[in-house]
């Protein structure tokens, strides 16, 4: 196990470097001259422009710029944006918001998705099972953008149950965006649980458990559920990494100041350092949670051995 984890950790390094370089290369071809954009209407003196270009390494070739960036990254210096604010500041201010949103989304995903999936899987082809199948198809088909607006309109404007934008009401204001962000994962969790349970209900060991007279509760909770949950737990684990980086649309629709919104704004304002910093962080989360899931697999399922 230890060797496997180390090997996987080493393998993530080229992926992380590659992804950040890809973003870096794309971002530093952003249109327009950011220094001129910074100056606004009053043109800057040529000497000031030259100094700024020098400060932000804009004169170096791409690969040198990237090397200097990596050098800073090595001691947690992600650079500064054009108003001289450290990118790390922006991240540490915005990240907690996105983490809260992700926590709410994962809770919804786990609780609702699991409950629906288990109930549907136990009674296959029942009314509830078909209801789950149809509603998950619907949820998966509705783009998150549309789901955001519809829930804003219905629950925010019509019924007035939830605030429709911002985070001024504490955790309460995260509920609606969290549910919207969780929607498609929730549907996948429900389907995955359903298939997995339905498959295991036919397994030999379940029949054995019933044959030796165990009560239905024990058969389902102790035998079926525990084995069926392995793919579900790993899906949710990997999804945490995806949600942390995938909240751009939700944060835009609900006007939530998380890192998704920050990166979207930064792309618009040509703040290269912010974009690269945040996207690298998102990629890191994604890779990190996938690594955890791989290790988790071995812990949950004793048949899997990595060494």
């Amino acid at each position, binding site marked *: 196990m230890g060797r496997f984890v180390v090997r996987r950790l080493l393998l993530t390094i080229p992926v992380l470097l590659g992804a950040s370089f*890809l973003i870096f290369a794309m971002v530093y071809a952003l249109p327009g001259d950011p220094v001129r954009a910074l100056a606004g209407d009053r043109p800057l003196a040529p000497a000031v422009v030259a100094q700024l270009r020098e400060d932000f390494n804009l004169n170096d070739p791409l690969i040198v710029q990237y090397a200097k960036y990596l050098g800073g990254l090595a001691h947690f210096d992600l650079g500064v944006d054009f108003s001289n604010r450290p990118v790390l500041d922006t991240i540490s201010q915005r990240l907690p918001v996105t983490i809260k949103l992700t926590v709410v989304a994962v809770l919804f995903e786990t609780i609702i998705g699991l409950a629906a999936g288990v109930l549907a899987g136990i009674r296959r082809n029942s009314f509830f099972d078909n209801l789950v199948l149809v509603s998950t198809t619907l949820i998966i*088909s509705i783009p998150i*953008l549309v789901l955001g607006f519809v829930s804003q309109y219905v629950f925010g404007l019509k019924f007035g149950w939830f605030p429709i934008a911002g985070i001024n009401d504490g955790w309460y204001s995260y509920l609606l965006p969290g549910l919207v962000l969780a929607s498609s994962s929730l549907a996948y969790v429900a389907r995955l649980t359903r298939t997995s349970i339905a498959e295991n209900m036919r397994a030999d060991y379940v029949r054995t458990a019933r044959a030796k007279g165990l009560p239905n509760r024990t058969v389902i909770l102790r035998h079926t559920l525990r084995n069926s949950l392995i793919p579900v737990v790993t899906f949710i684990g990997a999804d945490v990494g995806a949600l942390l980086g995938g909240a751009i649309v939700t944060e835009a629709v609900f006007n939530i100041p998380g890192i998704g919104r920050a990166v979207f704004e930064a792309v618009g304002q040509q703040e290269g350092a912010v974009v690269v910093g945040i996207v690298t962080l998102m990629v890191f989360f994604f890779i990190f949670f996938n690594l955890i899931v791989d290790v988790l697999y071995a812990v949950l399922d004793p048949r899997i051995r990595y060494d």
Partner: protein
Amino acid sequence: MTEQQQRDLRHDEVEAGTQSVLATPRVDVTDARQNSLWSDAWDSLKRNPLFWIGSFLGVFFVLMAIVPQLFSGGADPRDCDLSNSKQAPSGSHWFGFDQQGCDYLANVAYGARNSLMIGLLAVIGVLVIGVIVGAIAGYYGGIADSLLARLTDIFFALPLILGALILLRVGPSTGLPIISDRGAGAVAIALAAFGWMTAMRLVRSQVIAVKSSDYVAAARAMGASNLRILTRHILPNAVAPVLVFSTITVGVLIAAEATLTYLGVGLQRPAISWGLQISTGQSLLRTAPHLVLFPSIILSLTVMAFIMLGDALRDALDPRQRS
């Protein structure tokens, strides 16, 4: 072995001057009752309501994309009268009017073309990249496989919307032919560039699974070239899963296009697009909710059509799920 593969093997054998049992046409009394994967699939599709709903919606929206005039109720989407601004839906104008006083039904109907075109183009792009990279990685293995798998991991770690967002924002300044014109082609390329990874993994695993089978060994023993083995003997096996994947992906990419356009980097005015309609309607959600509602519903139905079709195809083509 399918008939196609048997015919191909026979062709290779004739060239090599050999003959094997595998390649000789079978005379089998039970043959009449043996169905191919595709005829079995069709039998199961016919009985699946998802398939019929999906195909109906799919045909409906493809028609709408080709001849939007049929669905616009005779109105021209660009024939606007400000005095009709934001009028609610009525009997003669089912979807009402937008802020400029344009007939909204016509606008929504004409939006189908861009969405479907980008969805299809992007999927073609995804397939081209995915099949080429996946086939090379799976077939040659070794160093090529390791490098391509890492490359795929790199792209996989970037969220689709984020990657496409940055590429489209950078696009106009690059001066590249299609990327810089901010049109449907640019959006399709951006989506394909950051959406091909699953197709690659799918093809790669299929290729690896089939590579070591006997009939591939037979074809190789008779001196068939790598390219021939790959295209005639191995890739046809990957058609079923790739077909399922592409059908679903059309839907996913149509949704992604609307999202990118909503975020301001996709299609630009004066293009007619559901994403633009939703984005304009957002600020009028309180006074004229129908401006967000109608393009949203039509967009969702379009996405749903492809996802349902894909689901139905998967149920039909995966023999393990058959009882």
